[in-house]
């Protein structure tokens, strides 16, 4: 019994007769729970149960920066029926029950991510000791996969901290730092690594009273209170997401209202509920989104290059925010602009960013020290990567790259954040072009995870690899895109935005158009999006796309730009804004939206997506879907634009498109991409 190792668990008994179970998932950098690991855990627990003189149990992780990141998503992929799902759920629940019912104290010693199933395992222990570390985080992110916790999380967490606080964590899926988890009553102690063993021994030897919910928190679990709080929570969720699109958080609240979590039956209820959710399209598509994210992450091999110093030229919204983000992520960054006032504004935004993301003042200061104001461009000589984010004027950019070519070190890579100018036109010097890539960030930089990495025949693939490694280094998602007008995201998004203006010109109220798009699942309607981006920016983008791809631009947008109505930033665009808030006219009750409005909007995107695939601008359909989800917020529950196409049926959509072409003209003419994609 002293040594009872399994493939994934190490089991040791110490001089106090405490058993130390250490999870070290074979062949993996991180720990995640699967059937095998849980079976082994059950086997070990059963052995320990029958061993005399055992006085306590500790569960910990052998992985660096990671306790248990959650359940292994892989195993849920192939579940065909609710019963198959129920089996897996019940297995986990029963193992955790054995753990929870052990007659002696148990401690989860946690360093690094403690998420999902890992968190539920920790909740089944009597005590939780967290080790001080920024990576130590607690959370139940299941809703992000279209489900809710299933291994007792929706029961044990409300028992521990009360229903209201627990559900807030479950429906948001947000992660807590160790100190926040302590304040909430989730962990029993937060200690530095050097005190971890003493803390564990304290709990196992002295067996202090377990933390219980305060009386205020306990009240929230009472049968008379639950429906009231539950209804309030449901309203809160409904303000953010549509129940039809995202059922999981609503299900979590409903389970809690209808069941007394103090009773054992609550576990069975939870298991049934999650098994149903696992079968929904939403859940399958959200799991797909998770894999799309992993796919993009894998494009960037962090080992491909190290970036000690990044120099950014141009301190406008994009350049300034890119520089701040690099500094936030630990890279020494120099920011250059001819206009020191613009730089001053960029540094004020950077400080806000640092304060928002970094908890401790000394970390904020360290980030500030990493971001150096550099009006004279001293950073150029030492930078590993130089990002150009100046005005979209070809001559200015050319002149800049000529300077960079003279001053930068030989190994340095150049990048441009241009969204309209083809890479090949930015320099006449083949040596410059060979080391130049596009890094197309999206606004706002801090919120948008996607970066299009623009590749072209003029540079070698090693430069592309390094560019993608950089994007991973700063924890963004790289999407390789061929240099082509509008790249991927803008190429697909622009026809959709323009279509919304055509709709206005045909007399449909903007509010109704936005409502239709939001009903489809778009996070923000196209008209409001245009206002937010700025009509001038949109017009500029549309003009430059038209220059290479043809087409027409609705007059309305030009008229508004000429009148100075540029959108949210001028308080007047298609909508009026007051104190930064949009004022939307209400639609008449009797108004009936033409039934092809949603088709017109979505098929505009689909048609240009087909063109992108036909021109092989991105490697495959998955990349296209990833680009749209992480670059535009295309509804994740739909699994991406091409996933929507596949689910709707391609022939049907083509039929609809042809119909639209008859009605509205050639902008809906199916492009050659449809044939290529279907033929391939």
């Amino acid at each position, binding site marked *: 019994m002293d040594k009872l190792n399994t493939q994934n668990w190490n089991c040791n008994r110490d001089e106090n007769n405490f058993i130390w179970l250490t999870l070290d998932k074979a062949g993996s950098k991180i720990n995640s729970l699967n059937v095998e690991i849980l079976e082994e855990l059950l086997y070990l627990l059963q052995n320990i149960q029958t061993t005399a003189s055992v006085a306590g149990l500790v569960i910990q992780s052998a992985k660096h920066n990671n306790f248990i990141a959650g359940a292994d998503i892989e195993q849920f992929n192939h579940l065909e029926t609710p019963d198959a799902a129920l089996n897996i759920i019940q297995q986990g629940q029963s193992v955790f029950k054995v753990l929870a019912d052990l007659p002696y104290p148990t401690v989860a010693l946690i360093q690094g991510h403690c998420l999902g199933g890992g968190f539920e395992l920790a909740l089944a222990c009597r005590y939780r000791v967290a080790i001080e570390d920024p990576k130590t985080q607690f959370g139940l992110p299941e809703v992000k996969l279209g489900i809710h916790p299933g291994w007792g999380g929706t029961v044990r967490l409300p028992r521990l901290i009360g229903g209201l606080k627990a559900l807030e964590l479950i429906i948001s899926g947000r992660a807590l730092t160790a100190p926040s988890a302590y304040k909430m009553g989730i962990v029993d102690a937060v200690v530095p690594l050097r005190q971890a063993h003493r803390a564990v021994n304290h709990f196992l030897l002295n067996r202090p009273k377990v933390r219980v919910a305060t009386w205020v928190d306990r009240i929230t679990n009472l049968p008379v209170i639950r429906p009231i709080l539950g209804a309030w929570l449901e309203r809160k969720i409904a303000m953010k997401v549509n129940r039809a699109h995202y059922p999981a958080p609503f299900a979590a609240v409903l389970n809690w209202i209808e069941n007394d979590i103090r009773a054992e039956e609550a576990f069975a209820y939870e298991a049934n509920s999650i098994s149903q959710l696992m079968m929904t399209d939403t859940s399958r598509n959200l799991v797909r989104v998770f894999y799309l994210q992993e796919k993009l992450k894998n494009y960037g091999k962090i080992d491909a290059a190290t970036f000690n110093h990044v120099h950014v030229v141009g301190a406008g919204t994009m350049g300034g925010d890119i520089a701040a983000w690099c500094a936030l992520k630990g890279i020494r960054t120099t920011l250059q602009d001819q206009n020191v006032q613009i730089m001053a504004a960029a540094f004020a935004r950077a400080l806000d960013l640092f304060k928002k993301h970094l908890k401790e003042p000394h970390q904020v200061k360290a980030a500030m020290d990493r971001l150096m104001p*550099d009006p004279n461009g001293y950073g150029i000589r*030492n930078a590993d990567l130089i990002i150009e984010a100046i005005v979209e004027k070809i001559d200015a950019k050319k002149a800049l790259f000529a300077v960079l070519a003279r001053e930068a070190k030989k190994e340095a890579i150049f990048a441009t954040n241009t969204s309209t100018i083809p890479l090949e036109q930015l320099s006449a010097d083949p040596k410059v072009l060979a080391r130049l890539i596009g890094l197309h960030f999206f606004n706002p930089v801090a919120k948008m995870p996607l970066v299009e990495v623009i590749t072209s025949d003029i540079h070698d693939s090693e430069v592309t690899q390094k560019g993608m490694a950089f994007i991973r280094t700063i924890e963004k998602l790289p999407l390789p895109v061929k240099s082509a007008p509008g790249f991927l995201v803008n190429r697909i998004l622009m026809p959709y935005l323009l279509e919304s203006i055509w709709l206005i010109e045909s007399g449909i109220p903007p509010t109704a158009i936005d409502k239709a798009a939001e009903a489809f699942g778009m996070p923000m309607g196209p008209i409001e999006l245009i206002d937010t981006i700025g009509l001038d920016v949109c017009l500029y983008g549309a003009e430059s796309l038209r220059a290479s791809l043809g087409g027409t631009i609705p007059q309305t947008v030009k008229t508004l730009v000429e009148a100075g109505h540029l959108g949210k930033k001028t308080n007047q665009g298609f909508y009026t804004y007051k104190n930064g808030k949009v004022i939307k006219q209400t639609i008449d009750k009797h108004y009936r939206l033409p039934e092809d409005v949603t088709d017109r909007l979505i098929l505009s995107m689909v048609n240009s997506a087909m063109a992108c695939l036909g021109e092989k601008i991105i490697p495959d359909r998955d990349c296209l879907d990833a680009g749209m989800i992480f670059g535009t917020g295309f509804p994740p529950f739909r699994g991406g634009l091409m996933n929507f196409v596949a689910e709707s049926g391609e022939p049907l959509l083509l039929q609809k498109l042809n119909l639209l072409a008859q009605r509205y003209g050639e902008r809906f003419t199916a492009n050659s991409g449809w044939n290529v994609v279907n033929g391939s």
Partner: protein
Amino acid sequence: MQKNKRNVYIVDGARTPFIKALGKANPLSASDLAVAAAAPLLARQSFKPTDIDEVIAGCVGPAVEEANIARIIALRLGCGEKVTGWTVQRNCASGLQALECAALNIAHGRSELVLAGGTECMSRSPLLYQNDMAAWLSVFQTQKGIAKKLKNWLKFRPHFLIPVVSLLKGLTDPVVNLTMGQTAENVAYQFGISRAEMDAYAALSHQKAIAAHKNGHLDERIALFDWRGNVITQDTGVREDSTLEKLGTLKPVFDKPFGSVTAGNSSQITDGAAFLILASEAAVKQYQLPVLGKIVDTVWSGLDPAAMGLGPVHAIQKLLALHQFSTDDIDYWEINEAFAAQVIACLKAFEDEQFMRKHFNVPGAMGRIPMENVNVDGGAISIGHPVGASGARIVLHLLQVLKRNQAKRGVASLCIGGGQGGAMLIEHVSEIV
């Protein structure tokens, strides 16, 4: 003085614009200001911050969280854990002291490459509790029991709450119980300097600083970002409207109401930082560094604290005597403008036979220091006087003046509260032969 010692070169230097304190605490601390000046300075060098041997900073009043501020600056600049940092304090000459310490270590072969200078954030000078208040508060921590604590409440006196203004205390000599301004009144009295002379000097200081800015002669400044949306590119204490008439309307602040030293003819309470890179000949060659000049020697002198403003006279006399130079051998001078009265008094003293005989046991006057060669681009009265940084600023600027005028020798000198003077002899060198 540095026979058999290695040469010490000044390679480059930079400072922040100096910011007049206006009653509101600067969002940037003394170490923030130092980093703002030194980070760009290091970024334009051919060596890495980790190649430096040590960082030496002068700072009279670092914030409570900035003990040994030089080490904090070194770490924040990315010099790495192996580069040491130490802080020096010689009141108004702390920045000069830092340069001298760096020069000595290079001369003796202990260092090759040193970042040295000074920083001060006077607008952040704290208000302190009096000792009575601290003693009264400490009882609550040491005495147990409610009865004892209640009893202690009875011992409270309202005057405990009167704060100690650390800035004022710092500018008062505790030995002779005179404020710095009063010592300036002393030397004005001693040399018969009128209010009009002082104000004229002050107005000239502003005019020179304005002209220097217009002519691009203050290029050692680096734009300072406050991270709150503002950028400062000029010294904010310099005023176009500091005319003789306007200065004449100000009231005396130290000897009220009959004195003549006013806020207008004194140096300003200011925030700022100035740093220089000093290198041995070996380091200059190794990294192929450009050279601005050479530190030849530094001397310090003591004198009556009540006449501390004459410190430069004592230091310069000693320095010139040691090198057997006359005032004519020096091309340009920086004499820190603590007070207009004090600078004028120094110049008068050099020409005063009686004064020279009495203090230095020399046969007569030392010679004239022509006013037009002193502080040619303004001084602390217009630009400001962040006490820890000024010494470094005047050396850095003197090098620019020598270079601009193709001149050879310069002396930078400061008076020091407590009754001292410091003077550094530098030479313009453009390359090492």
